[in-house]
């Protein structure tokens, strides 16, 4: 019998390549005879393109050609996961700072870069650019998107893509002893995956091959097949493990552009963005949140009223789903008699926002948890107690069609204990606590094939993208336990639509639960086949053979699945192949199209010390506790939690785009946009898991990768407030912002 793998932390699948430099990321792949592409962009957000002169660029040695909108089909092909609004390349007008207007293909990178400098774009800057919510909603606002692209949307003549309205009960009918209301803002931040995005394409005669740093290879395959009018079978997508994704690599960006260029060249082409270019292509949606809530004098919530305006950027990408999903859970994990929620998706002349870890929840959670603290203050209640009082209990229906799927009280109490809630504080110190809740996937479809090879090793095929979360390891652990094959003898194959069966996507912390179930079912399929083989081999009734942890339990003895397989397949050898499928169907009655497969629930608690002279915030201690069902690989769960927490501390303390008044990002790149380094960590950091095996995935697991950044900001800001007495309603909490708030409080008192 093999040792139980689930619940242990074997070395990471793909780890060897990652520590030796042999891991092949997209930019490490060279295609024979490939052309290099460089984008041409303008140093302006909104401009009319009058003409583009490519003659000088095309006359340079090494430059093959320059692609502009004029070289693409008319009308311009457009694409997107929700709306077909993103053009292959800017068509007549740029809508954000960094939107490409031309692309140069050349024999070398140097020639492509030189060519890009020689492309002459005659353009005029257009007034009326929309860079904030107020301007976007003004009655005379310039329309970011052409109304003809908006179909029959009632909002087509505005910059609002859609308005989501959710809620229950009648908020006006509730009696409250206290009503609190406030406004909060959340800035634009970028994913900053250390691997910049990259794209390659090669024509194959009757089809095309695409390479991309994408998280969703099958979505890309579908979009490319439709755009090029090819059968899916002729569009092969290679998706090497992304070097960090965080949501930013979910949705296709420049794959269609490189595909058209490869078809024109009849040769492979490659475009690898610089980090600076990546900054201009992906970000988190900013938000302005107005929130109001009522309470009884005992602290029970009577109603909540949340209105969020998300500024999503020039093209919708997946942002409208960010708005609906986060808005639906806006009221959080609380028991509230009446709730009214409005969420608006608003376009602007800024970088298109996309999925980003937390999927809209960090924005709304920032406002909601800060408001709960204000209520506690006004009621003279403890900030922990007011949360415990209102928290939905296990199995309690707290949102229409959804119930609490974990012991959230245990999670909160654990975090409170860890942070030392209630212990005396030294001067200039404060603590904060906040709870966050995010819906897992609402639909899902994952297929897996597992091959049990004759020598007793195994191969798992799974269309998940392993971008650092460690999906390879998780799937190998599941197969190891189900088949009795040591983890190190299992290879997990991903990232090639010609080889690996369909998976909907790698997002919403779904893969361990959904693909994990498909992998487990594929192993069950193998178990069944080997059991049938063993029944014949040993002359036993199939029904009399039970299966446990990689073994067949015969009436008189146990036989390892691997041994039975080898005996049955001798002397020719061969293998046993299993298939598994996990389908989470749509629910047309659910406002989101399906119930949450699970909730990610996290309690975050922080202790800070504030330098009253400089406004600098020192993180003394930071605690995150997640309700994970079961920690399938404790080391990886901790790594995900720590990583999410640190990313959350980034948008809490230092990260934000800074714009000039023309909509240009002024802090592009690693020098001017800071993320946490090893010197910026909390002095003490803890992540902990609550494990009650109450999740829907294999062995009772839930998804885990986002919880620890859902409410980082309100926990830290609450600690700053306790330390200083000042309430800050905008992020990040830079020393300057804290210092200004301190001065304002001083002047006002």
């Amino acid at each position: 019998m093999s040792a139980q793998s689930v619940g242990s932390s074997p070395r990471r699948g793909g780890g060897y390549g990652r520590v030796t430099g042999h891991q092949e990321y997209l930019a490490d792949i060279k295609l024979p005879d490939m052309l290099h592409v460089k984008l041409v962009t303008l140093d302006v957000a909104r401009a009319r393109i009058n003409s583009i002169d490519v003659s000088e660029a095309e006359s340079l040695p090494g430059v093959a050609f320059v692609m502009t909108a004029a070289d693409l089909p008319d009308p311009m092909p457009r694409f997107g996961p929700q709306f077909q609004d993103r053009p292959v390349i800017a068509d007549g007008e740029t809508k954000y700072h960094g939107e490409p207007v031309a692309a140069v293909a050349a024999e070398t990178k140097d020639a492509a870069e030189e060519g890009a400098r020689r492309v002459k774009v005659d353009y005029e800057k257009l007034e009326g650019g929309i860079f904030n919510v107020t301007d976007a909603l003004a009655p005379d606002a310039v329309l970011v998107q052409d109304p003809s692209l908006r179909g029959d949307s009632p909002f087509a003549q505005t910059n609002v893509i859609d308005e989501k309205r959710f809620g229950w009960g009648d908020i006006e009918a509730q009696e409250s002893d206290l009503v609190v209301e406030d406004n909060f803002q959340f800035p634009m931040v970028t994913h900053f995956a250390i691997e910049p995005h990259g794209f390659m394409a090669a024509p194959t005669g009757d089809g095309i091959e695409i390479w991309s740093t994408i998280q969703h290879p099958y979505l890309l395959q579908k979009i490319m097949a439709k755009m090029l009018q090819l059968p899916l079978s002729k569009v092969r997508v290679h998706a090497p493990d992304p070097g960090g994704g965080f949501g930013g690599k979910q949705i296709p960006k420049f794959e269609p552009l490189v595909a058209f260029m490869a078809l024109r060249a009849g040769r492979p082409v490659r475009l690898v963005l610089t980090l600076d270019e990546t900054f201009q292509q992906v970000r988190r949606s900013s938000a302005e949140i107005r929130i109001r809530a009522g309470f009884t004098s005992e602290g029970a919530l009577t109603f909540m009223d949340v209105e969020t305006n998300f500024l999503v950027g020039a093209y919708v990408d997946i942002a409208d789903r960010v708005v609906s999903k986060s808005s639906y859970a806006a009221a959080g994990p609380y028991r509230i008699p009446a709730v009214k929620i409005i969420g608006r998706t608003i376009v602007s002349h800024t970088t298109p926002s996309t999925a980003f870890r937390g999927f809209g929840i960090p924005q709304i959670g920032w406002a909601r948890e800060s408001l709960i603290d204000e209520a506690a203050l006004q009621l003279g209640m403890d900030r922990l107690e007011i949360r415990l009082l209102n928290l939905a209990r296990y199995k309690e229906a707290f949102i229409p069609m959804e119930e609490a799927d974990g012991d959230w009280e245990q999670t909160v109490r654990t975090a409170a204990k860890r942070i030392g809630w209630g212990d005396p504080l030294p001067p200039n110190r404060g603590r904060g606590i906040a709870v966050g809740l995010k819906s897992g996937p609402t639909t899902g479809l994952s297929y897996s094939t597992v091959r049990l090879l004759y020598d007793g090793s195994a191969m798992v095929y799974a269309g998940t993208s392993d971008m650092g979360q460690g999906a390879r390891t998780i799937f190998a652990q599941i197969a190891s336990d189900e088949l009795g094959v040591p983890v190190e003898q299992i290879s997990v194959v991903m990232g090639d639509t010609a080889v690996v069966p369909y998976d909907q996507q790698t997002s919403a912390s779904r893969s361990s639960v959904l693909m994990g179930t498909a992998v487990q079912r594929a192993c069950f399929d193998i178990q069944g086949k080997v059991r049938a083989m063993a029944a014949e081999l040993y002359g036993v009734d199939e029904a009399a053979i039970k299966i446990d942890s990689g073994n067949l339990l015969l009436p008189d003895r146990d036989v390892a699945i691997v041994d039975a397989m080898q005996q049955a397949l001798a002397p020719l050898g061969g293998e046993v192949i299993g298939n598994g499928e996990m389908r989470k169907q749509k629910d047309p009655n659910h406002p989101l199209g399906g119930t949450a497969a699970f909730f990610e629930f996290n309690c975050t608690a922080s202790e800070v010390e504030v330098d009253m002279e400089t406004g600098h915030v020192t993180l003394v201690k930071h605690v995150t506790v997640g309700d994970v069902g079961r920690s399938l690989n404790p080391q990886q769960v901790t790594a995900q939690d720590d990583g999410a927490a640190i990313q959350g501390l980034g948008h809490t303390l230092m990260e934000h785009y800074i714009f000039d008044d023309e909509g240009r990002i002024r802090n592009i790149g690693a020098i001017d946009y800071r993320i946490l380094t090893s010197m910026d960590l909390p002095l003490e950091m803890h992540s902990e898991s609550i494990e009650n095996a109450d999740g829907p995935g294999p062995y009772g697991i839930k998804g885990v990768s986002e919880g620890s950044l859902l409410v980082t900001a309100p926990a830290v800001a609450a600690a700053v407030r306790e330390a200083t007495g000042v309430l800050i309603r905008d992020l990040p909490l830079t020393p300057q912002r804290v210092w200004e708030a301190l001065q304002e409080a001083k002047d006002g008192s």
Partner: protein
Amino acid sequence: MNETLTIRTTINGRKRTIDVAVNHTLLDVLRDDIDLTGTKECCVVGECGACTVIVDGRPMNSCLMLAVEIDGKEVTTVEGLELDGELSALQAAFLDESAAQCGFCIPGQLMSATALLAENPDPSVEEVQEGLAGNLCRCAGYEQITKAVLAAAKGVPR
């Protein structure tokens, strides 16, 4: 065509004579000319550390060095850390501590850590954090990376 110069250098123990474009960085040459793609390209302004290599014992951002500058010098990249098929103590510790997540920053982290331990074989937590402060990790495995470096420092030297 770009002007080129011939340089003589030792990379991962192997003596090489290479014609390099005078305007190309060491990072360009490693990745594009001699296919040592383990060294990663990210910010190209010397802030992220993904392209860190060791030149004559010192950790350097290869995106900030012209390739011609390594003429006569000795360069170690992540591909040079394994010795006779054996992972270095640091590489093994990175695996044991799950310090490599997406892995993209890891070659740079390993090179900075290798240089750090060569200089200071028994660093404190703070010294490790300071020594690796120039290597960004967006998966933010800083705690795991620090633990791995400390574990490797305590291990038996290779």
